[in-house]
Structure formats: structure tokens, C-alpha cells
């Protein structure tokens, strides 16, 4: 059984398996990562670090690709929802 860890998504604590990617940890109902230039909500597209739609703020550092970041215990993930 993989170890369960805690990540903080937009201020909410969530339990995920260790090794889960930051994008997968965003929750089952809202895969929104950022707002577009015209203010519309966007989510992941390519899943492999190319499209740059999954840019989120991780542990205070902006523009990290959530699809290529592994969750660590205590990691803070903030999407545009939190910043706006």
C-alpha cells in the first residue's frame, strides 16, 4: 500500500498517495489550474509537460508544471483560484 501524505490545495488539506502528481491532487471535481489571458478557466491538456496549461504555484514558487511535479508531504499547491 503506498504511503498517504498530506498536501494543501488552495488552503484545503487533502490526503493523497505518495507519488501522486500535483495535477492529480487537485481534486475530483475541479481540474482548474489557471486563468487564461482573457480570464477564462483552464485545466490540463497534454499531461506531459508541453502545453503549459497546468502551471500552478508550488510551495510559493510560480509557474511550476503540476503534471511533472510529485506531491510531497506538506506541499502547498495554489492554482489561480487561490491567487485571484
Amino acid at each position, binding site marked *: 500500500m503506498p504511503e498517504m501524505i498530506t498536501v494543501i490545495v488552495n488552503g484545503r488539506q487533502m490526503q*493523497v*498517495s505518495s*507519488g*501522486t*502528481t500535483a*495535477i*492529480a*491532487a487537485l481534486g*475530483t471535481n*475541479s*481540474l*482548474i489550474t489557471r486563468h*487564461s*489571458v*482573457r480570464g*477564462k*478557466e*483552464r*485545466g*490540463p*491538456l*497534454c*499531461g*506531459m*509537460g*508541453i*502545453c*503549459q*496549461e497546468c*502551471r500552478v504555484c508550488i510551495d510559493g514558487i510560480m*509557474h*511550476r508544471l503540476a*503534471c*511533472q*511535479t*510529485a506531491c510531497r508531504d506538506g506541499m502547498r499547491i495554489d492554482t489561480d483560484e487561490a491567487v485571484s
Partner: protein
Amino acid sequence: MTHRADVVVVGAGPAGLSAALAAAESGASVTVIDDNLASGGQIWRPGLPHQSDPRAQQLREELAHASNVRMLHSARVIGMLDQHVLQIELPDAAMSICFGRLVLATGARERLLPFPGWILPGVTGAGGLQALVKGGYPIAGKRVVIAGSGPLLLAVAASLRSRGAKVVLIAEQVKTRGLLQFASALRQWPGKLLQAAQLRMQSLPAKYLTGSFVLEARGKDHLQQVSLRTPKGLLLVDCDFLACGYGLLPNLELARMLGCKAEGEAIQVDAFQRSSIPHILCAGEITGIAGVDSALVQGQIAGLVATDRLHDAQVLFPSRDHWHSFASLLAQTFALRPEIAKLCRDDTIVCRCEDVCYGELKQYDNWRGAKLQTRCGMGPCQGRICGTAIKHLFGWSVESIRPPLSPARVESLILNERVSSLAD
């Protein structure tokens, strides 16, 4: 920080891992650079253990036991500092790597083409959704429509079903006749035919519609419904995810930046996998989309040649040729029908990074003009997504690669200055 290896391999998918092992067996020092969290590339991305290819497991184990192999994960090549020196960025550091020989095995990505509503949250690539799910996204119970083109659609359907997704429909744009011809031609590669049949079984009870493609994705703030054109007319399907991809495209950016000659959508290599640049070899999808078996043998040849074992490499040529014709069959079968290029409306966004619409772009007749006036292609994806779209929609040639190869931190770029001044 400068690191040195006899052979540097960029990409830890099947071609890269195969090249790394072949090179390592000579005793040479080998470093593998890959931007993902773990090795395997896309096709061997870990996350569904019961579906893993035994060859992946074997390669990983043998490489792990080789003391002369160093794996660098979450590492991206952002530029070159010198003819034999690559500039690398990691999440918390930057470094330069000096190589004797370089093997490029940067693999492929999906061809993601625009259609009305493709920017809605919930619309992803086909492989894109599979990658999300392998990364731990809880897809169980979600309704998924898989669409686009290629054998990948079936593989994705099988993966998602195994994780409890409700795969409602698989919509392949190739017509039934084309697929039957494909199946018939697959007799030459019986393993592939068997694999196709198995994947179809594993994707049931999802309907597999041929000659069908997505017209539009609809929803208020996220995807709620997809409309498709099918041979029987218009079809509306309620769903949570649309996983839509139109085949694969090679990731040529690094090879191009290094000056390797390309022909169309592939880097030119000779029989020994050597590119037009001395000391640089290429293997796998960047020499032409041909799948995992071809990538493995090309990688092995490249690793042998990179360590000067040309005779051993030649032994593998017939095996490589056997898979090369599979590549032609794939390209022929899954060519895109013309309607796919005509789905955009004037208000359909084409450049997702900068929100540039089809209506704005169609006023131009070349990439450079469109880019300078609209900012299309000047966002973080550096034109990878919209460039592909534009090439397909308008036929414009979309060339121009400059470092950094991906968005990079200033401190990683400053590394260049530090290295240069040390050399003075």
C-alpha cells in the same frame, strides 16, 4: 556545476533506455536526462503496474545495477553552452553536461488540434488523460469520450477502464474500410494484431465508432457534452472528460536546435542512427513515428554505435527494418481526413497561451507575420501546441528554434555567463 559523461542520452523512454544500456555495456560512462519524474517516457509511464511491459522492467533493473549509468530525472535541456556541452535545468538547480557522444531519444507528443470548446477544462489529449490517471487522478466513475485517431485511443480506453472510468465511446476518424485493411496488414506483425484484439476486449463495453470525429465540446465552465459527426449523423454525448488526440508528432526541438538535418517530420539518420552532426545520434520516434519495438532496436543500435561497436550494431539492422514498414502502415492508415482541419469557427481559440482566435489568424499567410501581430506562438508552450495546429490548419511552415528550449529560470540562464568567464 559541470558534469561529464562519455555518452549522454536525452530521453528515458524505450529508445533512450535501450541506448543507455547498450552503451553502458561497453563500460563507458552514461548519463540519461529526462524531464519526467520517472523513466519510461510516455508509453512506459509508470502508474498502472498490471499493464507494464516486461521489457520496461528489465531495462530499468539492468540500468539500476550498472554503476556507470547516472539517471537525471525532472531534468530539461534548455540550451547548449558549447558544441559538446548541454545546459540543463532541474527543479532546484541548473548544471552543464559535457558529452563525448550524444544520443537524442526525445520521443513524441500528441497532435492536439483545435475545435470549438477544446479549451474547456475536461478536454485533454488521449494520452494526456492517460498520463493524468497514471499520475493518480481518480477517474473512477467519470464518463469519458475518447476521440481522435490512432492505436493509442484503444490503449487509453483499456487503461481508463482498468481504473474504473465509464468509457462511453471511442470515436476514430478513420473509416471502417481503412481499419479492416490495417488489421489485415497487421498479420505481418502478429504480436501487434494480438495486442489490438486484447486492447479492444479490455475497452469493452465502450462503443468503437469509426469514421467519426468531434465537432464541438460544450459546457459552461467545464466540459459537459460533446457533439460528434458520425456516419449515421450528429451524435451528442454527455460526459466529464473528452480525451482527444490525433496521432503522434516527434519532439524535434532539441535535435533542430543542435543543427541536425530533418526531412519533413523526422530527423535524418544513416543506417547507424547517426545524424548530420558528428557525435550526435538519434533513435526512436524522432526518426519517424514507428512505435515501441522500433524505438527499442534503434536505441540499441545508437548505444552500440555511440561506443564504437558498429559490427554489433549491424546485426540488428534486419530487426529494425521489420519494424520500419510498420511505421509506414501506421502513417498510411491513420492519415487525417480533411474535415478535421475545418472545425474551427472564427472565435475558436488556436493559441491557448495567448488567447488568439482562428478569425484573427486567418488574415495572415505566414507564421512570422501572424506571430508578430497577434502573439500567437509567443507564450510559454513556445508554439508547440499552436504551431502544430497552424501547420495543420493553414499549411504554414513553422520553423525557428531558439534557446531556452522551455521556460527557464534566470539563474539557470546565467549559468552560461559563469561557465564562459571560467573558460577565459
